[in-house]
Protein backbone atom coordinates (compact mmCIF):
# COMPACT_ATOMS: atom_id res chain seq x y z
CA UNK A 1 0.00 0.00 0.00
CA UNK A 2 1.10 3.59 -0.31
CA UNK A 3 2.56 5.97 2.22
CA UNK A 4 0.08 8.07 4.14
CA UNK A 5 -0.29 11.61 2.81
CA UNK A 6 0.34 12.83 6.35
CA UNK A 7 3.67 10.99 6.64
CA UNK A 8 6.54 13.30 7.44
CA UNK A 9 9.43 13.05 5.00
CA UNK A 10 11.92 14.36 7.54
CA UNK A 11 10.85 12.08 10.39
CA UNK A 12 13.96 10.52 11.92
CA UNK A 13 14.50 6.87 11.13
CA UNK A 14 13.67 4.75 14.17
CA UNK A 15 16.16 2.10 15.12
CA UNK A 16 14.54 0.37 18.13
CA UNK A 17 13.24 -3.03 16.94
CA UNK A 18 9.98 -2.72 18.93
CA UNK A 19 9.01 0.42 17.07
CA UNK A 20 10.11 -0.93 13.69
CA UNK A 21 7.63 -3.80 14.10
CA UNK A 22 4.81 -1.30 14.57
CA UNK A 23 5.84 0.47 11.34
CA UNK A 24 5.11 -2.63 9.26
CA UNK A 25 1.57 -2.31 7.82
CA UNK A 26 1.15 -6.11 7.71
CA UNK A 27 2.02 -6.45 11.41
CA UNK A 28 -0.43 -3.64 12.22
CA UNK A 29 -3.18 -5.11 10.04
CA UNK A 30 -3.00 -8.73 11.22
CA UNK A 31 -1.97 -7.77 14.75
CA UNK A 32 -5.07 -5.64 15.27
CA UNK A 33 -7.32 -8.49 14.08
CA UNK A 34 -5.64 -10.90 16.52
CA UNK A 35 -6.03 -8.32 19.29
CA UNK A 36 -9.76 -7.91 18.64
CA UNK A 37 -10.22 -11.72 18.67
CA UNK A 38 -8.33 -12.09 21.96
CA UNK A 39 -10.33 -9.30 23.64
CA UNK A 40 -13.56 -10.84 22.29
CA UNK A 41 -12.67 -14.30 23.61
CA UNK A 42 -11.69 -12.99 27.04
CA UNK A 43 -14.67 -10.65 27.37
CA UNK A 44 -17.16 -13.39 26.35
CA UNK A 45 -15.67 -15.76 28.93
CA UNK A 46 -15.45 -13.08 31.63
CA UNK A 47 -19.04 -11.87 31.26
CA UNK A 48 -20.36 -15.33 30.43
CA UNK A 49 -22.15 -14.23 27.26
CA UNK A 50 -24.57 -16.82 25.83
CA UNK A 51 -23.22 -18.57 22.70
CA UNK A 52 -26.64 -18.19 21.19
CA UNK A 53 -26.14 -14.45 21.21
CA UNK A 54 -22.39 -14.05 20.74
CA UNK A 55 -20.28 -17.21 20.42
CA UNK A 56 -16.61 -17.00 21.34
CA UNK A 57 -13.98 -17.04 18.55
CA UNK A 58 -12.82 -20.47 19.70
CA UNK A 59 -16.36 -21.84 19.31
CA UNK A 60 -16.58 -20.26 15.86
CA UNK A 61 -13.32 -21.96 14.83
CA UNK A 62 -14.71 -25.30 15.98
CA UNK A 63 -17.91 -24.66 13.96
CA UNK A 64 -15.81 -23.67 10.94
CA UNK A 65 -13.76 -26.87 11.11
CA UNK A 66 -16.90 -28.98 11.55
CA UNK A 67 -18.69 -27.25 8.67
CA UNK A 68 -15.76 -27.83 6.32
CA UNK A 69 -15.07 -31.31 7.68
CA UNK A 70 -18.42 -33.04 7.73
CA UNK A 71 -20.92 -30.26 6.98
CA UNK A 72 -20.15 -29.94 3.27
CA UNK A 73 -19.38 -26.20 3.39
CA UNK A 74 -16.61 -26.66 0.80
CA UNK A 75 -19.30 -27.70 -1.67
CA UNK A 76 -21.37 -24.59 -0.90
CA UNK A 77 -18.29 -22.39 -1.24
CA UNK A 78 -17.60 -23.98 -4.62
CA UNK A 79 -21.19 -23.43 -5.78
CA UNK A 80 -21.12 -19.75 -4.75
CA UNK A 81 -17.72 -19.13 -6.35
CA UNK A 82 -18.86 -20.77 -9.59
CA UNK A 83 -22.02 -18.62 -9.71
CA UNK A 84 -20.06 -15.43 -9.02
CA UNK A 85 -17.19 -16.01 -11.41
CA UNK A 86 -19.10 -17.62 -14.28
CA UNK A 87 -21.55 -14.69 -14.47
CA UNK A 88 -18.72 -12.25 -13.93
CA UNK A 89 -16.60 -13.80 -16.72
CA UNK A 90 -19.47 -13.50 -19.20
CA UNK A 91 -19.92 -9.86 -18.11
CA UNK A 92 -16.19 -9.15 -18.50
CA UNK A 93 -15.95 -10.44 -22.07
CA UNK A 94 -19.28 -9.10 -23.33
CA UNK A 95 -18.97 -5.83 -21.36
CA UNK A 96 -15.54 -5.06 -22.78
CA UNK A 97 -16.66 -5.77 -26.35
CA UNK A 98 -19.87 -3.80 -25.87
CA UNK A 99 -17.92 -0.91 -24.34
CA UNK A 100 -15.49 -0.86 -27.28
CA UNK A 101 -18.39 -0.79 -29.70
CA UNK A 102 -20.25 1.97 -27.84
CA UNK A 103 -17.09 4.08 -27.54
CA UNK A 104 -16.25 3.85 -31.23
CA UNK A 105 -19.69 4.07 -32.83
CA UNK A 106 -21.65 7.28 -32.69
CA UNK A 107 -24.99 5.50 -33.14
CA UNK A 108 -24.30 2.72 -30.65
CA UNK A 109 -23.35 5.39 -28.13
CA UNK A 110 -26.51 7.41 -28.63
CA UNK A 111 -28.66 4.32 -28.09
CA UNK A 112 -26.63 2.89 -25.20
CA UNK A 113 -26.53 6.21 -23.32
CA UNK A 114 -30.28 6.05 -22.74
CA UNK A 115 -30.32 2.42 -21.64
CA UNK A 116 -27.36 2.86 -19.31
CA UNK A 117 -28.88 6.00 -17.79
CA UNK A 118 -32.09 4.09 -17.12
CA UNK A 119 -30.66 0.78 -15.90
CA UNK A 120 -27.37 1.60 -14.20
CA UNK A 121 -28.79 3.42 -11.14
CA UNK A 122 -31.47 0.74 -10.67
CA UNK A 123 -30.54 -1.43 -7.65
CA UNK A 124 -30.05 -4.81 -9.32
CA UNK A 125 -31.37 -6.57 -6.25
CA UNK A 126 -34.84 -5.26 -7.16
CA UNK A 127 -34.66 -7.42 -10.29
CA UNK A 128 -34.60 -10.65 -8.30
CA UNK A 129 -38.41 -11.15 -8.28
CA UNK A 130 -38.69 -10.55 -12.01
CA UNK A 131 -35.74 -12.81 -12.80
CA UNK A 132 -37.26 -15.61 -10.70
CA UNK A 133 -40.49 -15.29 -12.70
CA UNK A 134 -38.55 -15.53 -15.94
CA UNK A 135 -35.75 -17.93 -15.12
CA UNK A 136 -36.78 -19.85 -12.02
CA UNK A 137 -34.28 -20.23 -9.21
CA UNK A 138 -31.69 -22.48 -10.84
CA UNK A 139 -28.33 -21.93 -12.51
CA UNK A 140 -29.48 -19.54 -15.27
CA UNK A 141 -30.98 -17.22 -12.63
CA UNK A 142 -27.79 -17.16 -10.58
CA UNK A 143 -25.57 -16.55 -13.64
CA UNK A 144 -27.85 -13.72 -14.78
CA UNK A 145 -27.85 -12.00 -11.41
CA UNK A 146 -24.03 -12.16 -11.20
CA UNK A 147 -23.76 -10.98 -14.82
CA UNK A 148 -26.09 -8.03 -14.16
CA UNK A 149 -24.03 -6.96 -11.16
CA UNK A 150 -20.79 -6.73 -13.13
CA UNK A 151 -21.83 -5.70 -16.64
CA UNK A 152 -22.68 -2.03 -16.04
CA UNK A 153 -19.47 -0.91 -14.30
CA UNK A 154 -17.43 -2.82 -16.89
CA UNK A 155 -19.24 -1.29 -19.89
CA UNK A 156 -19.17 2.21 -18.43
CA UNK A 157 -15.49 2.05 -17.55
CA UNK A 158 -14.55 0.56 -20.91
CA UNK A 159 -16.35 3.40 -22.71
CA UNK A 160 -14.61 5.90 -20.44
CA UNK A 161 -11.18 4.34 -20.96
CA UNK A 162 -11.52 4.13 -24.74
CA UNK A 163 -12.86 7.70 -24.98
CA UNK A 164 -9.89 8.97 -22.98
CA UNK A 165 -7.33 7.31 -25.25
CA UNK A 166 -4.75 9.85 -26.40
CA UNK A 167 -5.67 10.70 -30.05
CA UNK A 168 -1.94 11.02 -30.73
CA UNK A 169 -1.57 7.26 -30.15
CA UNK A 170 -4.30 6.54 -32.68
CA UNK A 171 -2.61 8.82 -35.22
CA UNK A 172 0.75 7.17 -34.55
CA UNK A 173 -0.77 3.73 -35.10
CA UNK A 174 -2.44 4.85 -38.34
CA UNK A 175 0.88 6.31 -39.43
CA UNK A 176 2.49 2.91 -38.86
CA UNK A 177 -0.14 1.29 -41.06
CA UNK A 178 -2.81 0.14 -38.57
CA UNK A 179 -6.28 -0.58 -39.95
CA UNK A 180 -9.39 0.30 -37.89
CA UNK A 181 -9.63 -3.24 -36.50
CA UNK A 182 -5.97 -3.16 -35.48
CA UNK A 183 -6.36 0.27 -33.89
CA UNK A 184 -9.20 -1.08 -31.80
CA UNK A 185 -7.35 -4.19 -30.67
CA UNK A 186 -3.81 -2.84 -30.42
CA UNK A 187 -4.35 0.76 -29.25
CA UNK A 188 -7.84 1.52 -27.89
CA UNK A 189 -8.19 -1.70 -25.89
CA UNK A 190 -4.77 -1.68 -24.19
CA UNK A 191 -5.01 2.03 -23.40
CA UNK A 192 -8.38 1.39 -21.74
CA UNK A 193 -7.17 -1.53 -19.61
CA UNK A 194 -6.54 0.43 -16.37
CA UNK A 195 -10.03 1.88 -16.64
CA UNK A 196 -11.57 -1.51 -17.51
CA UNK A 197 -9.88 -2.95 -14.45
CA UNK A 198 -11.41 -0.22 -12.27
CA UNK A 199 -14.77 -1.41 -13.64
CA UNK A 200 -13.84 -5.02 -12.85
CA UNK A 201 -13.18 -4.06 -9.21
CA UNK A 202 -16.57 -2.42 -8.88
CA UNK A 203 -18.40 -5.10 -10.86
CA UNK A 204 -16.94 -8.10 -9.04
CA UNK A 205 -17.91 -6.54 -5.71
CA UNK A 206 -21.52 -6.11 -6.84
CA UNK A 207 -21.59 -9.67 -8.26
CA UNK A 208 -20.53 -11.12 -4.91
CA UNK A 209 -23.20 -9.12 -3.06
CA UNK A 210 -25.93 -10.10 -5.51
CA UNK A 211 -25.15 -13.81 -5.65
CA UNK A 212 -25.02 -14.16 -1.87
CA UNK A 213 -28.21 -12.11 -1.50
CA UNK A 214 -29.99 -14.21 -4.15
CA UNK A 215 -28.85 -17.40 -2.44
CA UNK A 216 -30.31 -16.11 0.82
CA UNK A 217 -33.63 -15.53 -0.88
CA UNK A 218 -34.01 -18.67 -3.00
CA UNK A 219 -30.91 -20.84 -2.85
CA UNK A 220 -30.82 -24.45 -1.76
CA UNK A 221 -27.01 -24.54 -1.89
CA UNK A 222 -24.33 -21.89 -1.60
CA UNK A 223 -22.92 -19.76 1.19
CA UNK A 224 -25.94 -17.41 1.24
CA UNK A 225 -28.37 -20.31 1.58
CA UNK A 226 -26.31 -21.92 4.37
CA UNK A 227 -26.06 -18.58 6.14
CA UNK A 228 -29.81 -18.03 6.04
CA UNK A 229 -30.54 -21.56 7.19
CA UNK A 230 -28.06 -21.34 10.08
CA UNK A 231 -29.68 -18.08 11.17
CA UNK A 232 -33.17 -19.55 11.13
CA UNK A 233 -32.24 -22.45 13.37
CA UNK A 234 -30.23 -20.16 15.66
CA UNK A 235 -26.87 -21.84 14.95
CA UNK A 236 -25.02 -18.60 15.74
CA UNK A 237 -21.55 -20.24 15.57
CA UNK A 238 -22.33 -21.37 12.03
CA UNK A 239 -23.56 -17.88 11.08
CA UNK A 240 -20.25 -16.42 12.23
CA UNK A 241 -18.28 -19.19 10.54
CA UNK A 242 -19.92 -18.50 7.20
CA UNK A 243 -19.44 -14.77 7.62
CA UNK A 244 -15.74 -15.44 8.18
CA UNK A 245 -15.58 -17.47 4.96
CA UNK A 246 -17.21 -14.55 3.12
CA UNK A 247 -14.78 -12.09 4.71
CA UNK A 248 -11.82 -14.26 3.68
CA UNK A 249 -13.20 -14.37 0.15
CA UNK A 250 -13.32 -10.56 0.22
CA UNK A 251 -9.73 -10.32 1.43
CA UNK A 252 -8.46 -12.71 -1.25
CA UNK A 253 -10.36 -10.93 -4.04
CA UNK A 254 -9.13 -7.50 -2.87
CA UNK A 255 -5.48 -8.63 -2.56
CA UNK A 256 -5.51 -10.27 -6.00
CA UNK A 257 -6.96 -7.07 -7.44
CA UNK A 258 -4.25 -5.00 -5.72
CA UNK A 259 -1.61 -7.25 -7.27
CA UNK A 260 -3.15 -6.95 -10.74
CA UNK A 261 -3.38 -3.18 -10.26
CA UNK A 262 0.33 -2.99 -9.42
CA UNK A 263 1.19 -5.10 -12.47
CA UNK A 264 -0.82 -2.71 -14.65
CA UNK A 265 1.49 0.19 -13.72
CA UNK A 266 3.17 0.04 -17.12
CA UNK A 267 -0.13 0.70 -18.84
CA UNK A 268 -0.51 4.09 -17.24
CA UNK A 269 0.64 7.19 -19.04
CA UNK A 270 2.30 9.80 -16.88
Amino acid at each position, binding site marked *: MSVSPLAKDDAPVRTKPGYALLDDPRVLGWGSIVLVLVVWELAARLFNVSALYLPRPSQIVVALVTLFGSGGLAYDLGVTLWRIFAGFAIALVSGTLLGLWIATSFRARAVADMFIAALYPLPKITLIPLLIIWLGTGGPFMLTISFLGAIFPIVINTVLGVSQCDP*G*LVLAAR*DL*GAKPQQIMR*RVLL*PSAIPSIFAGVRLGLGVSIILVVAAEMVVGKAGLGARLYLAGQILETEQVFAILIVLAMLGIIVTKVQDAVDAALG*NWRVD
Partner: protein
Amino acid sequence: MPAVAIEFDDIGLTFAPASTAPTTALEAVSCGFEPGRVTALIGPSGCGKSTLLQIARGFLEPTRGTLRFLERANGKATARPAMSTVWQAFNLFPWLTVIDNVAFGLDLAGVTKSDRDARARRAIAAVDLNGFEDRYPRQLSGGMRQRVGLARALVMEPEVLLLDEPFGALDAQTRLVLQEQLARLVETSGTTAILVTHSIEEAILLADTILVMTARPGRIAAHIEVDLPRPRSMATTRDPGFSALFDRIYALLRDEVMRAMVGGQGGVQ
Protein backbone atom coordinates in the same frame (compact mmCIF):
# COMPACT_ATOMS: atom_id res chain seq x y z
CA MET B 1 13.96 2.87 -54.16
CA PRO B 2 12.17 4.94 -56.81
CA ALA B 3 12.61 8.64 -56.16
CA VAL B 4 9.24 10.31 -55.75
CA ALA B 5 8.62 14.04 -55.56
CA ILE B 6 5.62 15.48 -53.72
CA GLU B 7 3.84 18.39 -55.36
CA PHE B 8 1.28 20.66 -53.71
CA ASP B 9 -0.67 22.53 -56.39
CA ASP B 10 -2.89 25.32 -55.11
CA ILE B 11 -3.79 23.33 -51.98
CA GLY B 12 -6.25 24.88 -49.53
CA LEU B 13 -8.07 23.60 -46.48
CA THR B 14 -11.09 25.21 -44.86
CA PHE B 15 -12.61 23.63 -41.79
CA ALA B 16 -16.37 24.17 -41.81
CA PRO B 17 -17.83 22.83 -38.58
CA ALA B 18 -21.61 23.05 -38.33
CA SER B 19 -21.58 25.07 -35.11
CA THR B 20 -19.10 27.87 -35.82
CA ALA B 21 -17.81 30.03 -38.65
CA PRO B 22 -15.49 28.22 -41.09
CA THR B 23 -11.74 28.56 -40.51
CA THR B 24 -9.29 28.65 -43.39
CA ALA B 25 -6.15 26.85 -42.25
CA LEU B 26 -4.38 26.84 -45.60
CA GLU B 27 -4.93 29.05 -48.62
CA ALA B 28 -3.57 28.24 -52.06
CA VAL B 29 -0.30 26.58 -51.12
CA SER B 30 1.88 25.54 -54.02
CA CYS B 31 5.21 23.95 -53.30
CA GLY B 32 7.27 20.88 -54.04
CA PHE B 33 9.30 18.43 -52.00
CA GLU B 34 12.24 16.95 -53.85
CA PRO B 35 13.27 13.32 -53.35
CA GLY B 36 16.37 12.77 -51.24
CA ARG B 37 16.24 16.27 -49.83
CA VAL B 38 15.24 17.74 -46.51
CA THR B 39 12.67 20.53 -46.71
CA ALA B 40 11.82 22.58 -43.65
CA LEU B 41 8.49 24.34 -43.17
CA ILE B 42 8.77 27.26 -40.80
CA GLY B 43 6.15 29.82 -39.81
CA PRO B 44 4.20 31.35 -36.96
CA SER B 45 2.04 29.20 -34.67
CA GLY B 46 -1.23 28.18 -36.25
CA CYS B 47 -0.09 28.88 -39.81
CA GLY B 48 -0.97 25.38 -40.97
CA LYS B 49 2.51 23.80 -41.12
CA SER B 50 1.37 20.63 -39.40
CA THR B 51 -1.85 20.66 -41.44
CA LEU B 52 0.28 20.59 -44.57
CA LEU B 53 2.12 17.55 -43.21
CA GLN B 54 -1.17 15.78 -42.45
CA ILE B 55 -2.35 16.43 -46.01
CA ALA B 56 0.87 14.98 -47.41
CA ARG B 57 0.41 11.94 -45.14
CA GLY B 58 -3.18 11.52 -46.34
CA PHE B 59 -4.76 12.02 -42.91
CA LEU B 60 -6.51 15.23 -44.05
CA GLU B 61 -8.22 15.86 -47.37
CA PRO B 62 -7.60 19.31 -48.86
CA THR B 63 -10.76 21.24 -49.74
CA ARG B 64 -9.13 22.66 -52.87
CA GLY B 65 -6.14 22.02 -55.11
CA THR B 66 -4.31 18.84 -56.03
CA LEU B 67 -1.68 16.75 -54.32
CA ARG B 68 0.60 14.83 -56.68
CA PHE B 69 3.27 12.21 -56.29
CA LEU B 70 5.62 12.18 -59.27
CA GLU B 71 8.29 9.70 -60.18
CA ARG B 72 11.57 11.54 -60.56
CA ALA B 73 12.74 9.38 -63.48
CA ASN B 74 9.86 10.03 -65.88
CA GLY B 75 7.62 12.63 -64.20
CA LYS B 76 4.69 10.21 -64.15
CA ALA B 77 2.11 10.31 -61.40
CA THR B 78 2.44 7.46 -58.92
CA ALA B 79 0.96 6.21 -55.65
CA ARG B 80 1.70 7.82 -52.30
CA PRO B 81 5.20 6.72 -51.26
CA ALA B 82 5.74 5.01 -47.90
CA MET B 83 5.78 7.64 -45.15
CA SER B 84 6.48 7.64 -41.42
CA THR B 85 5.98 10.43 -38.94
CA VAL B 86 7.95 11.58 -35.89
CA TRP B 87 5.62 13.45 -33.52
CA GLN B 88 6.18 16.40 -31.24
CA ALA B 89 4.37 14.57 -28.39
CA PHE B 90 6.39 11.36 -29.16
CA ASN B 91 3.13 9.33 -29.11
CA LEU B 92 4.86 6.17 -27.88
CA PHE B 93 2.61 3.35 -26.68
CA PRO B 94 3.12 3.46 -22.90
CA TRP B 95 2.22 -0.23 -22.41
CA LEU B 96 4.91 -1.44 -24.83
CA THR B 97 8.65 -1.69 -24.23
CA VAL B 98 11.08 0.27 -26.39
CA ILE B 99 11.67 -2.66 -28.73
CA ASP B 100 7.94 -3.42 -29.05
CA ASN B 101 7.22 0.23 -29.78
CA VAL B 102 9.87 0.25 -32.50
CA ALA B 103 8.65 -3.07 -33.93
CA PHE B 104 4.94 -2.08 -33.80
CA GLY B 105 4.66 -1.10 -37.48
CA LEU B 106 6.58 -4.19 -38.61
CA ASP B 107 4.28 -6.38 -36.50
CA LEU B 108 1.21 -4.81 -38.14
CA ALA B 109 2.76 -5.48 -41.54
CA GLY B 110 3.12 -9.17 -40.66
CA VAL B 111 6.93 -9.30 -40.42
CA THR B 112 8.04 -12.42 -38.50
CA LYS B 113 9.10 -12.07 -34.88
CA SER B 114 12.79 -12.83 -35.42
CA ASP B 115 13.00 -10.54 -38.44
CA ARG B 116 11.27 -7.60 -36.77
CA ASP B 117 13.35 -8.00 -33.62
CA ALA B 118 16.55 -7.86 -35.65
CA ARG B 119 15.38 -4.82 -37.59
CA ALA B 120 14.11 -3.05 -34.45
CA ARG B 121 17.47 -3.68 -32.72
CA ARG B 122 19.33 -2.14 -35.66
CA ALA B 123 17.06 0.94 -35.56
CA ILE B 124 17.52 1.24 -31.79
CA ALA B 125 21.29 1.05 -32.27
CA ALA B 126 21.10 3.77 -34.94
CA VAL B 127 19.69 6.19 -32.36
CA ASP B 128 22.19 5.07 -29.66
CA LEU B 129 19.67 3.41 -27.37
CA ASN B 130 21.33 -0.01 -27.07
CA GLY B 131 20.58 -1.54 -23.70
CA PHE B 132 17.21 0.20 -23.35
CA GLU B 133 15.22 -2.29 -25.44
CA ASP B 134 13.19 -3.62 -22.52
CA ARG B 135 12.44 -0.33 -20.78
CA TYR B 136 9.04 1.29 -20.87
CA PRO B 137 8.65 4.85 -22.23
CA ARG B 138 7.86 6.27 -18.79
CA GLN B 139 11.29 5.09 -17.62
CA LEU B 140 13.05 7.22 -20.28
CA SER B 141 13.90 10.93 -20.47
CA GLY B 142 12.19 13.13 -23.07
CA GLY B 143 15.20 13.03 -25.38
CA MET B 144 15.40 9.25 -25.20
CA ARG B 145 11.67 8.94 -25.85
CA GLN B 146 12.02 10.97 -29.02
CA ARG B 147 14.93 8.81 -30.14
CA VAL B 148 12.56 5.85 -29.77
CA GLY B 149 10.05 7.84 -31.86
CA LEU B 150 12.74 8.36 -34.49
CA ALA B 151 13.73 4.68 -34.47
CA ARG B 152 10.06 3.66 -34.78
CA ALA B 153 9.74 5.79 -37.92
CA LEU B 154 13.11 4.81 -39.43
CA VAL B 155 12.59 1.06 -38.98
CA MET B 156 9.73 1.29 -41.51
CA GLU B 157 12.31 2.42 -44.08
CA PRO B 158 10.03 5.21 -45.29
CA GLU B 159 10.63 6.91 -48.60
CA VAL B 160 9.50 10.12 -46.94
CA LEU B 161 10.16 10.97 -43.31
CA LEU B 162 7.71 13.48 -41.80
CA LEU B 163 9.07 15.35 -38.79
CA ASP B 164 6.31 17.26 -36.99
CA GLU B 165 8.17 19.62 -34.63
CA PRO B 166 10.13 16.60 -33.43
CA PHE B 167 12.14 18.45 -30.81
CA GLY B 168 9.48 20.97 -29.77
CA ALA B 169 8.81 19.31 -26.42
CA LEU B 170 12.48 18.97 -25.42
CA ASP B 171 14.79 21.21 -23.42
CA ALA B 172 17.37 23.32 -25.24
CA GLN B 173 20.43 21.11 -24.60
CA THR B 174 18.71 17.87 -25.52
CA ARG B 175 17.46 19.56 -28.63
CA LEU B 176 20.98 20.50 -29.75
CA VAL B 177 22.28 16.96 -29.36
CA LEU B 178 19.30 15.45 -31.17
CA GLN B 179 19.49 17.98 -33.99
CA GLU B 180 23.08 16.94 -34.65
CA GLN B 181 22.13 13.28 -34.44
CA LEU B 182 19.22 13.76 -36.86
CA ALA B 183 21.43 15.78 -39.23
CA ARG B 184 23.82 12.80 -39.35
CA LEU B 185 20.98 10.35 -39.92
CA VAL B 186 19.41 12.26 -42.83
CA GLU B 187 22.81 12.97 -44.38
CA THR B 188 23.74 9.30 -44.41
CA SER B 189 20.35 7.79 -45.30
CA GLY B 190 19.53 10.09 -48.21
CA THR B 191 15.83 9.86 -47.37
CA THR B 192 13.34 12.54 -48.31
CA ALA B 193 12.27 14.48 -45.25
CA ILE B 194 9.79 17.22 -44.44
CA LEU B 195 10.53 19.02 -41.20
CA VAL B 196 7.98 21.24 -39.50
CA THR B 197 9.67 23.49 -36.96
CA HIS B 198 9.49 26.74 -35.02
CA SER B 199 13.26 26.94 -34.77
CA ILE B 200 15.15 28.85 -37.46
CA GLU B 201 18.40 27.30 -36.27
CA GLU B 202 16.96 23.79 -36.58
CA ALA B 203 15.67 24.53 -40.08
CA ILE B 204 19.05 25.79 -41.27
CA LEU B 205 21.02 22.95 -39.64
CA LEU B 206 18.86 20.19 -41.07
CA ALA B 207 17.30 21.39 -44.31
CA ASP B 208 18.36 21.74 -47.91
CA THR B 209 15.36 23.97 -48.61
CA ILE B 210 13.37 26.16 -46.23
CA LEU B 211 9.80 27.22 -46.96
CA VAL B 212 8.71 30.20 -44.88
CA MET B 213 4.96 30.33 -44.34
CA THR B 214 2.70 33.28 -43.64
CA ALA B 215 0.37 33.63 -40.66
CA ARG B 216 -3.05 32.00 -41.02
CA PRO B 217 -4.39 31.44 -43.54
CA GLY B 218 -1.07 29.88 -44.44
CA ARG B 219 0.67 30.49 -47.74
CA ILE B 220 4.28 30.06 -48.79
CA ALA B 221 5.99 33.44 -48.31
CA ALA B 222 9.52 32.49 -49.33
CA HIS B 223 11.53 29.59 -50.71
CA ILE B 224 15.11 29.62 -49.44
CA GLU B 225 17.92 27.27 -50.48
CA VAL B 226 20.43 26.38 -47.78
CA ASP B 227 23.80 25.91 -49.46
CA LEU B 228 25.90 25.49 -46.32
CA PRO B 229 28.32 22.54 -46.56
CA ARG B 230 27.50 19.18 -44.97
CA PRO B 231 28.05 17.56 -42.58
CA ARG B 232 26.59 20.31 -40.44
CA SER B 233 26.94 20.57 -36.69
CA MET B 234 26.89 23.19 -33.97
CA ALA B 235 30.07 24.60 -35.57
CA THR B 236 27.95 25.49 -38.63
CA THR B 237 26.11 28.09 -36.54
CA ARG B 238 29.34 30.17 -36.49
CA ASP B 239 29.54 30.21 -40.30
CA PRO B 240 28.85 33.71 -41.71
CA GLY B 241 26.50 32.09 -44.24
CA PHE B 242 24.45 30.73 -41.33
CA SER B 243 24.06 34.21 -39.78
CA ALA B 244 23.00 35.72 -43.10
CA LEU B 245 20.34 33.03 -43.59
CA PHE B 246 19.18 33.30 -39.99
CA ASP B 247 18.72 37.09 -40.30
CA ARG B 248 16.87 36.75 -43.58
CA ILE B 249 14.42 34.15 -42.23
CA TYR B 250 14.03 36.00 -38.95
CA ALA B 251 13.05 39.21 -40.78
CA LEU B 252 10.39 37.31 -42.77
CA LEU B 253 9.05 35.50 -39.72
CA ARG B 254 9.04 38.57 -37.49
CA ASP B 255 6.57 40.33 -39.79
CA GLU B 256 4.37 37.25 -39.94
CA VAL B 257 4.41 36.66 -36.20
CA MET B 258 3.45 40.31 -35.66
CA ARG B 259 0.64 39.92 -38.16
CA ALA B 260 -0.56 36.76 -36.39
CA MET B 261 -0.55 38.57 -33.04
CA VAL B 262 -2.36 41.66 -34.32
CA GLY B 263 -4.83 39.50 -36.21
CA GLY B 264 -5.67 37.78 -32.95
CA GLN B 265 -5.13 34.35 -34.46
CA GLY B 266 -2.38 31.95 -33.58
CA GLY B 267 -0.25 32.16 -30.48
CA VAL B 268 2.61 34.32 -29.35
CA GLN B 269 5.95 32.64 -30.03
